């Protein structure tokens, strides 16, 4: 039987604050928080599996509330979300099976190394690509203009395979299911590997399918809801969900997710790309810092205990920094956007 940690005032305050910031980022870019919450709960003393299970249990209701809010703003393409979620579910299963195989073959350190390398590779490549695009949009002075569909997405949309074509009205795209299926599957595999499928899902919907970034980040919440719901039930069958932890994170995160969703209505589309990229790249640094620790555990080279402790601490600081940076950019952009909106209303009144 699993033992669950005792909660004191410090633990509760930590869960509330991280929950709020995670929710804020999630409401804005479609995913976030999970990569800090799971290690955060583990640092409080929860076992890895309980941390993952409880995280999922707060994630699906949070995603539901976020999706509902952004649906009111007309950002959610429900059909695209459900289609992606349908192929993401087998992706989660495959990702979990792969994770299990790595763990059985290379042990705990091997599994940690695999997860960290997946973080570093995916986040650096995708985050770098998204950042380049966001900066290009900003520099070109077209930041306020309507987003343009990229070259890859135009090619994808031009391919017509009879019998597989699907029209997604809110996203304003018509693409073959032959593209949504592997994309959804990859989102699921990543979700099972690093707990944040959105790092593939959101950029994938933007750059491969050609969905606007506002629609992609909102639709990701639908995918997160479906994956989180099934994931929670799967872990509950093993008795791993700590409902107290899950509901405490939810307490803070629902304040955050509503604020983040409102924030998207005040900013220019490139801001969503910028925040996504900045968070992804800082998290990549955080995971890269612990790679030597796992290599040392696997006996590749020796590392003194103080170096291990320092690298682990630095890694955690970077993860918290990723969320805080995201939160500061979002709140700052909201305040600027709000001031501009007020000025525009006053101008019209005059």
């Amino acid at each position, binding site marked *: *039987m*699993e033992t*669950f940690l005792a909660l004191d005032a410090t633990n509760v305050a930590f869960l509330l604050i991280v929950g709020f910031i995670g929710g804020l980022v999630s409401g804005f870019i479609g995913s976030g928080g999970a990569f800090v919450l799971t290690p955060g709960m583990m640092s409080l003393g929860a076992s890895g599996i309980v941390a993952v299970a409880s995280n999922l*249990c*707060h994630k*699906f*209701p*949070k995603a*539901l*509330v976020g999706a*509902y*809010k952004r649906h*009111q*703003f007309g950002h959610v393409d429900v059909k695209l979300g459900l289609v992606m979620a349908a192929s993401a579910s087998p992706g989660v299963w495959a990702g979990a099976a792969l994770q299990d195989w790595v763990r059985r073959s290379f042990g705990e350190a091997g599994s940690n190394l695999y997860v960290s390398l997946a973080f570093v590779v995916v986040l650096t490549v995708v985050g770098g690509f998204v950042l380049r695009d966001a900066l290009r949009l900003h520099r070109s002075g077209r930041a306020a203009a309507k987003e343009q569909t990229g070259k890859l997405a135009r090619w994808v949309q031009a391919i017509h395979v009879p019998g597989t074509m699907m029209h997604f009205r809110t996203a304003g795209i018509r693409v073959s299911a032959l593209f949504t299926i592997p994309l959804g599957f990859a989102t699921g595999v990543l979700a099972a590997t690093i707990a944040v499928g959105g790092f593939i899902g959101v950029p994938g919907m933007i750059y491969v399918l050609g969905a606007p970034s506002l629609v992609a980040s909102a639709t990701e919440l639908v995918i997160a809801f479906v994956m989180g*719901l099934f994931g*929670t*039930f799967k872990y*509950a*069958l*093993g*008795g*791993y*969900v*700590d*409902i*107290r932890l*899950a*509901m405490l994170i*939810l*307490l803070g995160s*629902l*304040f955050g*997710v*509503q*604020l983040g*969703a*409102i924030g998207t*209505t*005040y900013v220019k589309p490139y801001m969503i790309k910028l925040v996504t990229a900045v968070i992804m790249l800082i998290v990549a640094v955080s995971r890269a810092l612990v790679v030597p620790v796992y290599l040392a555990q696997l006996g590749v080279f020796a590392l003194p205990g103080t170096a291990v402790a320092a690298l682990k601490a630095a890694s955690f600081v970077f993860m918290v920094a990723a969320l805080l940076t995201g939160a500061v950019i979002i709140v700052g952009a909201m305040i600027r*956007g*709000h001031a501009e*909106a007020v000025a525009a209303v006053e101008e019209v009144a005059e």
Partner: protein
Amino acid sequence: MSRSRKLWFKLVTSGAVTAAFYWTLFAHEAEVMASFTRTDGFYPLLPVVTAFAFSFAHGAFTGYFWEALGVQARKR
């Protein structure tokens, strides 16, 4: 009832329901944890159903909370 009074009524009601949910969870912490981690019968559904219930009440409360503070979506 005026619009702002209606909002305050909704805010207080959803807040009270949320508070009652959280109070129940932590006042009966030991019993809740014992039954929510059972793996037989319909017990695994308990965390899922609870998460839905909490999110409806608390999601409504947080929505009204930001609205009462004047933090609302930009109308285009």
